[in-house]
């Protein structure tokens, strides 16, 4: 098979945290994550707050300097020296459409700034044309370019954020909870916009979200994270219908179903306790203290991802097939 668009191996991102006078502890936000993304593909990344999913996205873009691991783009290793070149190919859309747009800049300048930085036009007129075509691409119009971000609703602002990401004509976009802050009816508009752009421009997405309905809709494959590690990856339908990791199973069973009859009938696996602090991760399997199937080995050794079915990898010592 052809090379992957993006290949991440053993990515680690540790942050030093002050825990007292002259004392430091390492917060292991991401602790050995590997995955690949192909051209035009969407990989969904789900997990609860604090599991490290946003950090993965930011480390990929080298907004943080990764502690360890390798990130290859088109087979070429990304490092500090050549990152500037890759920035043109990898972009990001942030969660909060209110704080991720500069309130003092007009929409035209926000969308045009990446063009300035990467010198993507020859004349002023060309810049103008590019900005307008970008706004139109995401469902806004040319009148909007002279306005400021505060004049727009949440959904429109997210469109501005998408237009800015598309300005440099990237191949890959990290979407970091791009619809979480929006109302349901607006959320659907933005999801459709992402879908259309992918088909039109052949974009690949890393789609980070905690809403499994949305991730399932967007993604071909899904990776589930828990405390800095990927615990399960599979094709989107298999994650939802045939989850094998006990954490994924409880996550799936916890999603509220917008259907009263199904909601009444289903059996929910309610997890005991809460996510442990990432400063104090349990030994062995990080999930073991909340797990229904824990064994002795879970405390002693960390499970690695193993392929249990074609394309379905699980990191668990005692995975159970759902009935």
């Amino acid at each position, binding site marked *: 098979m052809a090379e992957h668009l993006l290949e991440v191996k053993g990515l680690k991102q540790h942050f030093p945290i002050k825990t007292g006078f002259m004392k430091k502890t390492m917060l292991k936000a991401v602790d050995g994550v590997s995955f690949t993304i192909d051209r035009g593909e969407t990989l969904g990344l789900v997990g609860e707050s604090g599991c490290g999913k946003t950090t993965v996205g930011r480390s990929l873009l080298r907004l943080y300097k990764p502690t360890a691991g390798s990130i290859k783009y088109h087979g070429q290793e990304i490092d500090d020296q050549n990152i500037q070149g890759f920035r043109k190919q990898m972009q990001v859309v942030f969660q909060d459409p209110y704080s991720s747009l500069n309130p003092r800049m007009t929409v035209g300048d926000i969308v045009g700034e990446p063009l300035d930085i990467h010198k993507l036009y020859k004349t002023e007129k060309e810049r103008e044309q590019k900005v307008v075509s970008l706004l139109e691409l995401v469902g806004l119009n040319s009148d909007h370019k002279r306005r400021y971000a505060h004049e727009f*609703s949440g959904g429109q602002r997210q469109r501005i954020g998408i237009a800015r990401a598309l300005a440099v004509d990237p191949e890959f976009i990290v979407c970091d909870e791009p619809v979480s802050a929006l109302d349901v*009816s607006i959320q659907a*508009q933005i999801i459709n916009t992402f879908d259309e752009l992918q088909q039109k421009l052949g974009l690949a997405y890393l789609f980070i979200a905690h809403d499994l309905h*949305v991730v399932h809709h967007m993604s071909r494959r899904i990776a589930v994270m828990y405390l800095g590690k990927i615990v399960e990856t599979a094709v989107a*339908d298999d994650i939802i219908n045939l989850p094998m990791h006990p954490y994924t199973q*409880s996550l799936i069973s916890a*999603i*509220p179903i*917008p*259907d009263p009859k199904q909601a009444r009938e289903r059996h929910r696996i309610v997890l005991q306790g809460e996510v442990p602090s990432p400063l104090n991760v349990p030994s062995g399997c990080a999930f073991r203290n909340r797990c229904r199937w824990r064994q002795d080995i879970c405390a002693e050794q960390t499970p690695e991802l193993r392929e249990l079915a074609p394309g379905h990898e699980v990191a668990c010592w005692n995975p159970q097939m759902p009935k």
Partner: protein
Amino acid sequence: MSQPLLQVKNLHTMFPTESGEVRAVNGINFSLERGKVLGIVGESGSGKSVTAYSILRILDNPGRITQGEILFEETDITKLPRNQMRQIRGSKISIIFQDPMTSLNPVYTVGNQLMEAIRLHTSRNRQQAQERALEMLELVGVNEPKKRLKQYPYQLSGGMRQRVMIAMALACEPDILIADEPTTALDVTIQAQILELMQELKNKLGMAIIMITHDLGVIAEMCDEIIVMYAGRVCERGTADEIFYNPRHEYTKGLLRSIPKMTTTKERLTPIGGSPVDLLNMPKGCAFAARCDRAMKICLTEQPEEIEINPDHRAACWVNVKEGALAQGGQNNG
């Protein structure tokens, strides 16, 4: 039939601002019976939280109730003097806020805050109040409750804080619990724990719950009856099954269509076009008309009234009026 516990009649709440009056709630009616869960759904700005705050009279300045009445056990609480309202708030009707991070006082211990509520509304002394606080923390499933009493909010996680909020709201055994997006700030697995807990407590204590949320999943799991709000008005109301399986208002239909379903076929979503209504410039007719695919002439000029679809179901939409008339006309002809 007995009198409902709470009756809201033609409630109007508005906020005067420099750029004009924001009419957040425009004449809504509902009633709530003991032991029932009423869900209020709607987008941001639809007036669902303002409705809750109006009931408790904790509106932020300069918001005020301009019309209507709220009958709690047959007394109109909109007209009660402040000190009497304070007696009801927290002891008869209490609220859980959306954000457990900011709703607790950071400079008092959890125990201190819990005991304050208990001592204010009951005749318990310090010792008894502490026992009650412990009991409540145990009830809501806080581990090591003794230790927690002495801790400050920042030492607890989001789920724990929300439990403390619930313990505080329930400490005086209220008749009505208003839950304003109680799980929006929480992760799904924690959300599942909290919803399960609320259902358990409802059965144990027999209180009524008003559940305010934009999450249709939460509504489907929790509620007996549902009110769908748009631009400060009720556009549709009915039992959970009626709303989910037989929606009649175009807005409700749109909402249900916009949620991605977890089936194997990934169909394109059908979003509701346009953007939410500007409360400063409310249209003359139906507030949803501008975003509605089936809008007719009358929708732009006249406000639709709620009409009965069946005894469990009412909707305020001209399309239904028209279809109803056609159906009736058809019967007459036949």
